[in-house]
């Protein structure tokens, strides 16, 4: 365990600029930390230490010449959903096998342009379908946090479980992640880290393995709110290779941290007060409103009446899009090819052998809701409900500037606990999925610990393209929460 790996991204960049240490030293410290801890955590699926050290040496040379970029020399991890040229990319699935992308995703290309150094590829639920990292074909990730007095392995959440665990355990300074229904924010909440899913269209989806294209968005998982701003600014930007990428300027998000939030109106949606919500989460939510009130915000109760229909609508829309997106895995041009007597048998066996159970389940549901006779009753109905959920937010944002909710309905739970009950697993996303459906930004930050000593997060939801306000509010809350607890990495 090195002091260098405990730094935030912001502090590490200051240290590099002050020549307190080199990018090579910083990278070597992280490679050492990964070697020591990855056997237990299973956060990295692939590590690229030689490439990382070579990139770090180039970064040091750039800094000497005064040509350092905004993230120059910072070692980061990449969710295995992002295509990385020449480095195996599996999306946590056997069907991609040993897929070596011959091209780079736009999000990671932006990070390398700004000088970041890749340490390796991070484990995830298969095709990002899961909330516990247990659907990964390469085994689950263990959360570096454990309940007080227990050695039982907990989930880091999902689908970006590898990203969240690696950041929480100091195995990288920051990580890329992606969020289709909560896959950045729920793992951030479970691991005491910060995560933001930006407005749909902020980050290019080019080179990101597709799950549900109208919901998928990239974003970072980091150790601080400011770090999340630095990462998101680098990751964002218009990309002609993604037709849904927004042609808008990217703000310097980190600059919003520390700004006054006085006079902002914050909504607290009454429908998010669910039956059976743990008392500790309700109390923390209340504490969050007090922190913002103390900073000069006005807290208002609001209503988002269609909240309870968001998850059922999501579980029609996301599988429908997935069944279409995953049709490309046919064993012909790349990935796993099964045996068979006819072409159809080869398709059927390739897909039966290559996809895991949860992915097959969602493809079947998606195929069903799109099939003749059911399309109007399920798929079209879900798209109309989606509109009503987006309209709820539009109405709310005529009264308030941002919305405060819990991130997840519980703290991290033991691996294996919810594996046999998909609906119970899906309920993890009850507070996060609404923003994916509406395309809005959502940020989770650690707010406190529960009675078992496990982290709990709060979520801020903003207007489309108003991530800046979320960073200002999160900065205030981060300071008030003074969350300094760390997992026992021994």
């Amino acid at each position, binding site marked *: 365990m090195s002091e260098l790996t405990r730094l935030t991204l912001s502090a590490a960049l200051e240290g590099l600029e002050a020549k307190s240490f080199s990018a090579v030293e910083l990278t070597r410290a992280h490679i050492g930390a990964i070697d020591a801890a990855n056997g237990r955590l299973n956060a990295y699926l692939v590590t690229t230490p030689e490439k990382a050290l070579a990139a770090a040496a180039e970064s040091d040379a750039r800094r000497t010449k005064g040509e350092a970029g905004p993230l120059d020399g910072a070692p980061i991890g990449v969710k295995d959903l992002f295509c990385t040229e020449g480095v195996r990319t599996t999306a946590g699935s056997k069907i991609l096998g040993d897929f*070596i992308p*011959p091209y780079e995703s736009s999000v990671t290309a932006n990070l390398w342009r700004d000088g970041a150094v890749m340490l390796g590829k991070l484990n995830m639920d298969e095709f990002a379908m899961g909330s516990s990292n247990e659907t990964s074909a390469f085994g689950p990730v263990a959360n570096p946090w454990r309940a007080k007095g227990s050695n039982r392995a907990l989930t880091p959440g999902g689908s970006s479980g590898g990203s969240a665990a690696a950041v929480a355990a100091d195995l990288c300074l920051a990580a890329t992640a992606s969020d289709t229904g909560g896959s950045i924010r729920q793992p951030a909440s479970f691991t005491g880290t910060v995560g933001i899913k930006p407005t*749909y*269209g902020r980050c290019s989806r080019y080179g990101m393995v597709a799950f549900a294209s*109208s919901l998928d968005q990239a974003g970072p998982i980091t150790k601080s709110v400011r770090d999340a701003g630095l990462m998101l600014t680098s990751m964002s930007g218009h990309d*002609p290779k993604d037709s*849904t990428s*927004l*042609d808008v300027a990217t703000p310097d998000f980190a600059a919003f941290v520390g700004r006054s939030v006085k006079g902002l109106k914050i909504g607290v949606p009454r429908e998010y007060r669910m039956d059976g919500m743990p008392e500790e989460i309700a109390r923390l939510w209340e504490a969050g409103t007090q922190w913002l009130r103390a900073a000069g915000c006005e807290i208002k109760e609001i209503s988002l009446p*269609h909240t309870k*229909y968001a998850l*059922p*609508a999501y*579980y*029609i829309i996301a599988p429908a899009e997935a*069944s279409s997106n995953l049709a490309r895995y*046919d*064993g*012909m*041009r*790349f*990935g*796993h*090819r099964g045996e*068979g007597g*006819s*072409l*159809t*048998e*080869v*398709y*059927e*066996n390739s897909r*039966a052998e290559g*996809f895991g*159970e949860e992915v*097959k*389940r969602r*493809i*079947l*549901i998606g*195929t*069903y809701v799109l*099939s003749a006779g059911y399309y109007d009753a*399920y798929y*079209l*109905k*879900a*798209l*109309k*409900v*989606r*509109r009503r959920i*987006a309209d709820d937010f539009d109405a709310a944002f005529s009264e308030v500037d941002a919305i405060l909710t819990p991130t997840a309905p519980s703290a991290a739970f033991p691996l294996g606990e919810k594996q046999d009950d*998909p*609906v119970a697993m*899906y309920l993890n996303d009850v507070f996060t999925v609404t923003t994916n*459906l509406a*395309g809005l930004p959502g940020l989770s930050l650690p707010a406190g610990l529960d009675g078992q000593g496990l982290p709990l997060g709060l979520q801020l939801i903003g207007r*489309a393209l108003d991530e800046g306000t979320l960073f200002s509010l999160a900065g205030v809350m981060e300071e008030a929460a003074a969350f300094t607890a760390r997992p026992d990495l021994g």
Partner: protein
Amino acid sequence: MTIDAATVRKVAKLARIAAPEERLNALAHGIMTWIEQLSEVETKDVEPMTSAVHQALPMRDDVVTDGARPDAVLSNAPRADRGFFVVPKVVE
């Protein structure tokens, strides 16, 4: 709403997934029952929301922007031969 075995087989055929296990069918059934609650929502005269962003798809010139990289295209093929994908016989 129940999904009978014949429907599951039909859907699996459409999705080109060989013989889904019984367990999978039962679980899919539980999820479909849970999804039924959407029928409670009044959606008369509601436009379906097909995209998360309010913007027209961008237009560009109809010109080739990439290509002529057969080696990269074939680099992950399960089987390739002299610049072609090798696939199972389709026509008898």
